Structures are given as structure tokens and as C-alpha cells.
């Protein structure tokens, strides 16, 4: 720190803190409103002025929602698909990242830059043929069809390679001298050393699957297979819109992610800023 540090005048500091509090308030209003709306009985929902404090009807609203649509099933589907996807994809990304970081082989650079180049392809470009392909493979309306196409994630491979560069070769050589197989070296030495990066990448992968909408909308047909985004979209699409139930559904979809965010904050921030 330099000794010539100029002090900002008090009014400036005050204004900055007030400005930030206003932004925080704007951030919180929709989330707070969601919780209020989700916990009001149907008849109080439409009163003016609107209620500003949460009610006690959250469970009732969820039950009413559940009676119309198997929403909790959708929550489970989302958790299941995103978890399975994250674990397998993490493994494949780490495997490829390890190869690119730690092995010398012919065409390594062009093969790696090719993966980076695929980053620019948007998902819309694949939706129609993916639908036809899944139909041919007999995978339409299955969870497998949601997982399979996105397993090899270019961002994941890139991030794993970057962090695996920091593993000292002496560790790998020491393991080889001790008689470890190449896969054991990857699994027992490289993977455990990469825990922070794996956690950050897990967040990226989980969120990407959790948010997916257009593609599952095309692939899935049965309500009992729906993921959260499809379920909520279906709830908003009816002639008669049950706003209180929709807000209960949104609350269930968002609260676990917020808790996860507060718990794994550092990984989240790393993950979000890395995922571009």
C-alpha cells in the first residue's frame, strides 16, 4: 500500500453504500415477492393492496399444485439428470484434460484447439437433427437423451487442462516407479489433487443441465419425465393460471440453488466467472 493514499470524503462513501443497498434491494424484491406469493392462500393473492408479509399457506399451495401436476417428480428428475450428467461429464473432462496437460503425443495442439473452437457452436443449431437422431436411436422421451449429447464439454476440458498443468511430473514419475498403472495415476493422484477445480466445474456442469430448456422441451413428452423448467412452463401455459401455485413451484426451484450458492460460494463464483 502506498502512503499517498487519498481519502475519499465521507459523503462519497455514504453515497456508495446507499447505492449498493438500493441495488441489493432491487435484487431481493422479486425473490421476496416470490416467497410472499407462494405462501398466500389463493383468495388473498388477488387482494389490493397486495400482501407484503409471507402467509402460512405454502404447504397447501404445494399440495394443490401437486394435485394438478406431478411437480415434485419434476424436481427429482432435474436433480437426478443434473447429478448423473455432472458426475459422468466431470470424469470425461478430467480424463481428457489430464491427457492434454500431462502427456506428450502427436497432434496434441491441433486436437486441443479443435476442442476450443467447438465452444462457439450454439445449441439451437443442433436441436432439430438431435430430435431426429434421438428418434432414430429410440431415445426420444428418455432422460438418457438429455445427458448423452452434452457429456463432452469443451469448457470443462479446457478448465481441467489448465489446472492439471500445475501437477508436478515428479509425482507421476514417482507413481510409475512404484508400479502404478496409467489409469491409477489419473485416478489416485491427479483427481484428488484437483478437488477445488473439480468442485468449480461440477457447479458449471450442474447449472448448465439444470437450466436447459429448449432441448428438453423438444425431447421430452411425458409429464412424469419433465424437468423443472418444462414443468413450470407447462404450469404457466394453461388458460387459467394459478399464480400462487406457480410461485410455490418457482420457490421450490430456486431456494435449493440459493442455499447451495451460499454454502459453496467460492466455488460458485469461480464457476460462474469461468463458465463465461
Amino acid at each position, binding site marked *: 500500500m502506498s502512503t499517498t493514499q*487519498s481519502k475519499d470524503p465521507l459523503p462519497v462513501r455514504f453515497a456508495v453504500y446507499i447505492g449498493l443497498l438500493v441495488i441489493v434491494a432491487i435484487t431481493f424484491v422479486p425473490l421476496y415477492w416470490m416467497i410472499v406469493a407462494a405462501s398466500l392462500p389463493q383468495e388473498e393473492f388477488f387482494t389490493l393492496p397486495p400482501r407484503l408479509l409471507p402467509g402460512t399457506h405454502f404447504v397447501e399451495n404445494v399440495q394443490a399444485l401437486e394435485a394438478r401436476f406431478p411437480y415434485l417428480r419434476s424436481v427429482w428428475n432435474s436433480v437426478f439428470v443434473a447429478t448423473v450428467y455432472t458426475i459422468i461429464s466431470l470424469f470425461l473432462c478430467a*480424463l481428457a484434460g489430464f491427457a492434454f496437460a500431462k502427456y506428450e503425443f502427436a497432434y496434441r495442439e491441433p486436437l486441443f484447439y479443435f476442442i476450443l473452437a467447438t465452444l462457439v457452436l450454439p445449441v439451437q443449431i443442433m436441436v432439430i437433427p438431435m430430435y431426429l437422431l434421438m*428418434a432414430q436411436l429410440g431415445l426420444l422421451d428418455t432422460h438418457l437423451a438429455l445427458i448423452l449429447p452434452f457429456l*463432452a464439454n469443451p469448457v470443462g476440458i479446457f478448465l481441467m487442462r489448465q489446472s492439471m498443468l500445475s501437477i508436478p511430473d515428479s509425482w507421476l514419475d514417482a507413481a510409475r516407479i512404484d508400479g502404478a498403472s496409467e489409469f491409477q495415476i489419473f485416478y489416485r493422484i491427479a483427481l484428488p489433487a484437483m478437488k477445488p477445480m473439480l468442485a468449480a466445474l461440477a457447479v458449471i456442469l450442474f447449472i448448465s443441465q439444470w437450466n436447459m430448456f429448449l432441448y428438453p422441451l*423438444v425431447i421430452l413428452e411425458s409429464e412424469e419425465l419433465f424437468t423443472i423448467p418444462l414443468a413450470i412452463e407447462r404450469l404457466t401455459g394453461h388458460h387459467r393460471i394459478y399464480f400462487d401455485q406457480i*410461485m410455490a413451484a418457482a420457490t421450490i426451484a*430456486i431456494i435449493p440453488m440459493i442455499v447451495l450458492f451460499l454454502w459453496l460460494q467460492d466455488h460458485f463464483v469461480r464457476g460462474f466467472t469461468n463458465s463465461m
Partner: protein
Amino acid sequence: MSLRDKRRVQSVKTRLRTTRNGVRDSLPSFPGVPYLYILPFYVLFALFMAFPVAYTFYLSFFRYHGRGSGYILEIDLFVVEAGVPRLSNLEFVGLANYQRLFGDALFLQSVENTIVVMLLQMPLMVLVSLLVALMLNAKFMQYSGYFRTAIALPVTANYVAYSAIFLVMFAENFGFINYMLGAAGLPTVPWRSDGFWAKASLAVALDWRWMGYNMLILFAGLQGIDRRLYEAAEIDGANRWEKFRYVTLPQLRPIMLFVIILSTIGSLQLFAEPMVITDGGPANQSITVVMYMYQEAFSRFNLGYASAITYALVVFVTILAYVQLKIGGE
């Protein structure tokens, strides 16, 4: 350069050298191993990326004559007849699909809507997230971490879930936002019945969802600016504005560019929000390009035309990103 800085540079150099040598030195006991490790990516890539990208392009030159029977389209990727593969129910139409784009009022409308939403949303978002990042980066800031966490909270929201929140908040007659506007003595806004305000409601929702995310990126960029540049500017007698104008902005330019390009790409691919919040209405005033593509492909089964829309979008995104890169990077 102080002694400490010299030492730091030296240590970074050593680290770089060992890393680079390290990569060259390590050899697996079996030469095929690295190929085995990267194989899954290339197999999955070939099947689920390369093939679809090429097939969409291919389809964009055809007209599909089959039907959709409810959910399943009656189409085969390839039909083998007498040992010869041919495409089912597809008639080659050359560039007809692309020609149709330019005379299709609804397509042009969707392009216009998408651009209007982007213009309403992006400048405000970039400006506010830059302002917030600057405030959080102030020297005296004591609770930066807490503020960052609170402001970044919306990034956890699922696209459709937060869209549902805004759908309810923007309801015209009893919605929370109109009520608050009324309570503040302001006129209420026809969010759902007016084309412009429908687009504005999408812009508001997008700003809410993405402001914190962009703030995090810009904040990281601000943290990366060398403090000594500010000290040098102070010695030269620069005031607050001059420091911002001649140090912060130029240093932050690559990251600003990154944020703007990513937001542009994101805006052009808008789908979940218009689907849920406005349902494209009123009267297609907020239908977006991707929404239109989805409807053409999966409601009207115009697979060829929908493929042409997709490629038009990709070309459009690429050109816009390129132009921004040229302008921003000089």
C-alpha cells in the same frame, strides 16, 4: 521495479519454465493412453455436434413433406431403398428457404423484436454492473464480499423459474409492479397488452437475472488493474474522473468487450423468457428468432425452413460478435 517485484517476476518465470518442461518430459508407459483418454470427447463430438451442425445445414436446402403425428415426426434420417440411401419425405429446394426468410414478415418481426429487447436491456445492464463493480472496488469498501454475494444471487435462478416470477410480477391488473407504480403516484404500465412494454418487461427481467453475473466479471477485471497505474496518475494530479477515463476504462476494455459480446450472443438466443413471460405476445410483438424457429420446426413441422432460420441466426451472431470485436479492439 522494486526488489520484491523482481523476485516475484523471477519466481513466475521459473514456474512457467518448469511447467513447460514438465509437459514435454512426462511420457506414459503405453503410448496409446492419451488417445484413449480423449477418445470419448471426439466420439461424442462426431455424433452429437459435428453431425447435427452439418445436418441442419443440409436440411436448410430441403422442404419436408411428411407430417408430424402428434409428438413424433414421421421422418427418418436416412431411408435405405434397394441398397441406396435416400432421405425420406424431403424435396430439394435449393436456396428457397433462405429466399423465403427475407419476405417473411413474421421472421423479420422476430428479428426486430430480438434486437429491440437487446437494445433495451444491454446498455443499462452493462452500465449498472460497471457502476456496481466500481463501487465495490472503492478503496474504502469494507463489506465487498457480502455485497457481491447478495447482488450475484439471481445467477442461481433457473431461467424458466425466474421468468415465472416476472410473469406474475408483471401481471397488468393486480401485479406487484403495477401496484407499486400506482402507489407511488405513477401511471401503471400495459406490460401485456402493448408491444413495446412487453419487450421492456423482458428487458427488465434479463437485467435482473444477469446484472450480478456481469458485475462479478467486471469486478474481477477491476481487481486485476495494477494499483501503481492509479498512483502514477495521482502523482500527475489526476482527479477521480480522469483516473477513470485514462486508467480504468482503457485497462478494462478487453473485459467490457467480453461482457458485451457474451450479452449480445445471449440476447440473440433468447427463448425461455419470451416463452414464459410474454408468450410472444401481444400479436407476436415479442416473439424472438429462436421462438419462431421452435414453432416452425415443432408446431408447423417446416424442418427445412426452421433449419434455414437457425443458420441465419448463427451467421447473424457471428457477424455481430465480429463487428463488436473489430470496433472494441480497434
